[in-house]
């Protein structure tokens, strides 16, 4: 993708920037760029390539024998690893279950915040709070909410006469929905802020014109707001999906993958494989599979959505 754009740009007639700096970076440019570029190459691009290479080796932690290339053995093992695919399925459930409600709730909040309501400042400030919190604290906080005896959730249910409540995070049926709710809560601010930015960017005159023509709120949303918001909505959803799929700290704190692996996201699975059992090569292969599947899913999603917008 990056390559294509680079070539496209180099094909254009040369536009000289004031003060030099055409297509080929000169010495001064390198001087400005290198302090950031070197760490990026050593600690970001390098490890990524290294990680892909590791997936084709039998690398293990604390082993004295030299690491060897084993071809695609890790991947064929992975193909038959039902535990991993269970975890992968849970990861997808989690990512979809968090991303979609999060988007809808955030859209609702953004629409409200875009209205001229009183207490909007308070809502704005509060909407940001989950963003500022360390994920570990978010997890701890919700553990307190879900706590079977001292938690507010069960107490509220008892007060409303809705039964005795339960142990949400250790119940086989409730654990995944319970962590998904936390995921939705934790990611709402970023989504809301991004959507709000998009909303404030929608053509206001069109809104007024549509209102004068007697279009109701829903019609105005469909005809004016949504088309303008769609690009932002798509990229936010795609990014959220990736972030959620790669999420770790929240669930690590809430359930550490339990009960019985019901909330063991692929990240937790790979983490345990690498740093508890020391299977570096195998865990790297998991990482590769995760990236590959997610990229394909996203490509399909985005292609479908963009096409749908053309009609």
């Amino acid at each position, binding site marked *: 993708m990056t390559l294509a754009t680079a070539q496209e740009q180099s094909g254009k007639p040369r536009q000289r*920037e004031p003060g030099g700096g055409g297509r080929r970076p000169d010495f001064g440019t390198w001087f400005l760029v290198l302090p950031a570029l070197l760490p990026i190459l050593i600690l970001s691009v390098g490890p990524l390539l290294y990680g892909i290479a590791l997936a084709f080796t039998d690398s293990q932690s604390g082993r004295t024998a030299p690491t060897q290339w084993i071809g695609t053995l890790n991947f064929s093992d992975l193909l038959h690893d039902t535990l991993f695919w269970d975890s992968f399925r849970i990861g997808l459930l989690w990512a979809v279950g968090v991303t979609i409600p999060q988007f809808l709730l955030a859209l609702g909040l953004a629409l409200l915040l875009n209205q001229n309501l009183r207490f909007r400042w308070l809502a704005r400030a509060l909407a940001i709070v989950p963003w*500022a919190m360390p994920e570990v604290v978010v997890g701890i906080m919700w553990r*307190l909410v879900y706590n079977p005896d001292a938690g507010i959730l069960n107490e509220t249910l008892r007060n409303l006469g809705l039964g005795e409540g339960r142990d949400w995070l250790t119940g086989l049926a409730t654990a995944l929905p319970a962590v998904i709710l936390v995921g939705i809560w934790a990611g709402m601010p970023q989504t809301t802020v991004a959507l709000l930015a998009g909303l404030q960017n929608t053509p206001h005159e069109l*809104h007024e014109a549509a209102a004068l023509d007697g279009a109701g709120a829903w019609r105005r949303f469909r005809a004016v707001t949504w088309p303008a918001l769609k690009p932002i909505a798509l990229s936010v959803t795609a990014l959220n999906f990736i972030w959620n799929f790669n999420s770790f700290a929240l669930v690590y*704190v809430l359930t550490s993958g339990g009960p019985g692996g019901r909330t063991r996201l692929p990240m937790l699975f790979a983490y345990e494989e690498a740093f508890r059992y020391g299977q570096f090569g195998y865990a790297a292969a998991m990482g590769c599979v*995760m990236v590959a599947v997610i990229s394909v899913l996203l490509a399909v999603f985005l292609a479908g959505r963009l096409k749908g917008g053309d009609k």
Partner: protein
Amino acid sequence: MSLTSGPMRTSRPARAGQYLALLAYLVFLAFPFLWLISTAFKSPRELGDLHPTWIPKDPSLDNFRQAFDEQPLLEAAGNSLIAALAAALIAVVIATPMAFVMARHRSRLTTAATGWVVVSQAFPFVLVIIPLFLILKNLHLINSLPGLIMVYVVWSLPFALWMLVGYVRAVPRELEEAAAVDGASRLRTLVSVTAPLLMPGLVATALFAFITAWNEFFFALVLLKSPEKQTLPVVLTHFIGAEGAADLGPLAAAAFLATLPSLVIFAIIQKRITGGMLAGAVKS
């Protein structure tokens, strides 16, 4: 802001509905945090009660005292502070010149850098953490703050670059051209013309990088092993485990304290972050 509902009248029931919805959002967003505060100030005896209440019956600071006794919180906060401060400063210092180049000069290099900024958002940590672990181990930087700081710097660079490129674009190019006409070198222009105008943006970016590092958990968990080197989020997880009612209080107290710095900083830069996103959206 008030543009939105200019000539359009919202009917009274609709307005009421909107306020109701807003209230529901406020409750949903605020109640877990209020519960954390409530739990933190309850006495250990009250935490054993069968019917917990929102307002602590006799508020006490026992949990805070106990939290500091149980875990090396001060030491951990110190580690977090060093890591976050260093990472934020280094990230801004090395990202600013690069953002300057990315904003002002189009070349293959800057296209590749922009591509990296986008792709790195989608980076699976699991694929990077194992190689990082091995590389840092070879450099003898495992289980050390400097190693963690290096990782944090690189990890906060994409967002820092993204923010800074926006801020640089907002500085009128004519000023830089004038400096160039007067014979100032590129570095000189950056230091004495662009940087002062960028100052608010630099501060916001640094603060954001600080919060990111202060809150970070995964890298710290993997890279720091000895308890006296661990950062606050990692130490907080030591409170979790076989927790009886007695340990909920210190857990809540420590979690509450760990959040305060991020909350304060976020309150300061909140406008700037939302504002920056708005500015970027409008300009593109």
